[in-house]
């Protein structure tokens, strides 16, 4: 483990964020940046902020949000505040106007605002904005996304922005440190290496992990809420059906039995989803068939009109074979969803085949086949890169997640074949790692 990694992992994650992104670490970093690296040079700060807002990862997020990004900052003692708008046009605004904005954000603790409000007049923008501000003894800075739209950002969009905001904040402080190191050679080489390594650790793969974590966190929260809210009414239905059953006979009873089965199925779906996607139950182990059935239930609407076939070897059908559920659920979810999305682009009858086979108890292989249009051969080398996507609706992180998940359990993940007839993704995981 390198020094940066060690630093990132040194505290137990208490925020639910992935390793290396805990708010404790971020706060620590802010303090280090503020105490030892007070930035007083406007050109340094501008370079940092523009590199953050123009970075590939930031652009990806703002594009997804159909929003623009701008920033303003004020260095103590300067006559005016510096404002770079979403067209990258530089403007200066009066300190009083800047402070009006900054104080309003700090006082109200409001992150989403209407830009038509009087305190934001100096920005000359309309619509809605979502702000992130930081301040230390010498600098006050605000980065904000905005969209000229009647409607405010949805909860999903705000969640995406929170992910981005975390990244911006982290990178901002790291970049301040790095620039100071570059410019002033203030501290010894050992610490310099430490921070540079730390910066490297915070590149796109960490953001992928964070985005992914948010995505599944929201899904898990949604399922838990549904589980809680639906448990009671479902129980009421079950009780009434059982009661009606005692009062009926013959065909009516068979009918009621069928209804009872469906109620039980609903209960099972909610119970099991929670188990598969909950990070708290990361260590939970379940048999491969049950894991796959839950994933297919979750993706039912995406798989509409697609013929799905499952082949599982006898050994993997064994209900007593308990394997790591968290990693496998996510690998299968991403692979099957990818196949479903690629099949939706074609007019032909879509087919997906999922094979789970055990190789003499040495490894278990998960393979997903589809008869979609395939991946162009010149893209094969890029598909595992974060944020690379060939789909209009894709995030470009599905295969990265599969890769990361497979690696986390010592497995390998690769594209076995892809042409216009068939695409096969394979994930091989050592048997021991799956059951232990």
């Amino acid at each position, binding site marked *: 483990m390198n020094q940066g990694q060690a630093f990132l992992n040194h505290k137990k994650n208490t925020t639910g964020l992935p390793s290396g992104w805990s708010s404790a670490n971020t706060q620590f970093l802010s303090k280090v940046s503020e105490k030892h690296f007070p930035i007083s040079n406007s050109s340094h700060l501008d370079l940092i902020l523009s590199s953050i807002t123009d970075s590939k990862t930031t652009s990806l997020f703002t594009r997804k949000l159909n929003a623009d990004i701008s920033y303003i900052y004020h260095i103590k003692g300067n006559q005016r505040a510096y404002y770079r708008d979403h067209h990258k046009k530089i403007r200066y605004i009066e300190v009083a106007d800047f402070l009006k904005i900054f104080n309003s954000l700090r006082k109200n603790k409001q992150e989403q605002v209407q830009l038509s409000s009087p305190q934001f007049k100096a920005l000359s923008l309309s619509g809605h904005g979502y702000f992130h501000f930081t301040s230390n003894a010498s600098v006050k800075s605000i980065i904000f996304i905005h969209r000229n739209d009647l409607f405010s950002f949805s909860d999903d969009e705000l969640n995406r922005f929170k992910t981005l905001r975390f990244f911006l904040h982290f990178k901002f402080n790291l970049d301040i440190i790095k620039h100071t190191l570059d410019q002033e050679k203030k501290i010894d080489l050992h610490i310099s290496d430490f921070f540079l390594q730390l910066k490297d650790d915070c590149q796109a793969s960490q953001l992928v992990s964070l985005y992914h974590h948010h995505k599944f966190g929201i899904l898990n929260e949604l399922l838990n809420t549904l589980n809680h809210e639906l448990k009671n009414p479902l129980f009421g239905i079950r009780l*009434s059906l059982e*009661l009606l059953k005692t009062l009926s006979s013959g065909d009516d009873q068979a009918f009621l039995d069928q209804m009872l089965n469906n109620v039980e199925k609903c209960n099972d779906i909610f119970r099991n989803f929670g188990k598969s996607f909950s990070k708290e139950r990361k260590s939970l182990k379940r048999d491969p068939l049950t894991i796959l059935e839950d994933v297919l239930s979750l993706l039912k609407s995406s798989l509409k009109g697609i013929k799905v076939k499952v082949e599982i070897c006898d050994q993997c059908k064994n209900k007593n074979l308990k394997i790591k559920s968290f990693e496998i659920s996510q690998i299968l979810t991403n692979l099957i969803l990818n196949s479903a999305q690629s099949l939706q682009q074609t007019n032909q009858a879509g087919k997906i085949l999922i094979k789970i086979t055990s190789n003499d108890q040495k490894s278990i292989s998960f393979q997903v086949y589809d008869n979609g249009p395939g991946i162009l051969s010149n893209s094969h080398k890029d598909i595992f890169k974060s944020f690379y996507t060939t789909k209009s609706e894709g995030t470009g992180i599905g295969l990265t997640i599969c890769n990361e998940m497979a690696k986390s359990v010592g497995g390998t993940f690769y594209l076995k074949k892809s042409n216009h007839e068939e695409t096969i993704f394979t994930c091989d995981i050592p048997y021991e790692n799956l059951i232990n």
Partner: protein
Amino acid sequence: MKILLIEDEKLIQMSLKMILEKNGAQVDTSSDGKSAIRLLQANEYDRIICDLMLQDISGFDILEEAKKKYSIKQISDKFIIITAYSSPQITERVKAWGCLLIPKPFDDMNNVINTFLGRAL
């Protein structure tokens, strides 16, 4: 046996009332906490089956109110708490009152009905 059933999910309330009445109990029902408290004050019950999450107040508020009429021992004998939202914290709180906690949905209906009726299993 006279039972007060406090449950806001109408289907559960109606079904449990019918099952308990079939088993010979006399059942009063209430869908909210305030009317349950009025019934508690006005009548004597052998058993009070109380859902924890009600629209207006919680089952714990009803237990507090019951202290005005019953001793802690009587409360722990009479009250059975049912809930779809059990958690270690809720379990602890119910345990502190000495009451029995039965999570919903009931796994074994016969067993639960016998418990409600105070029958030996």
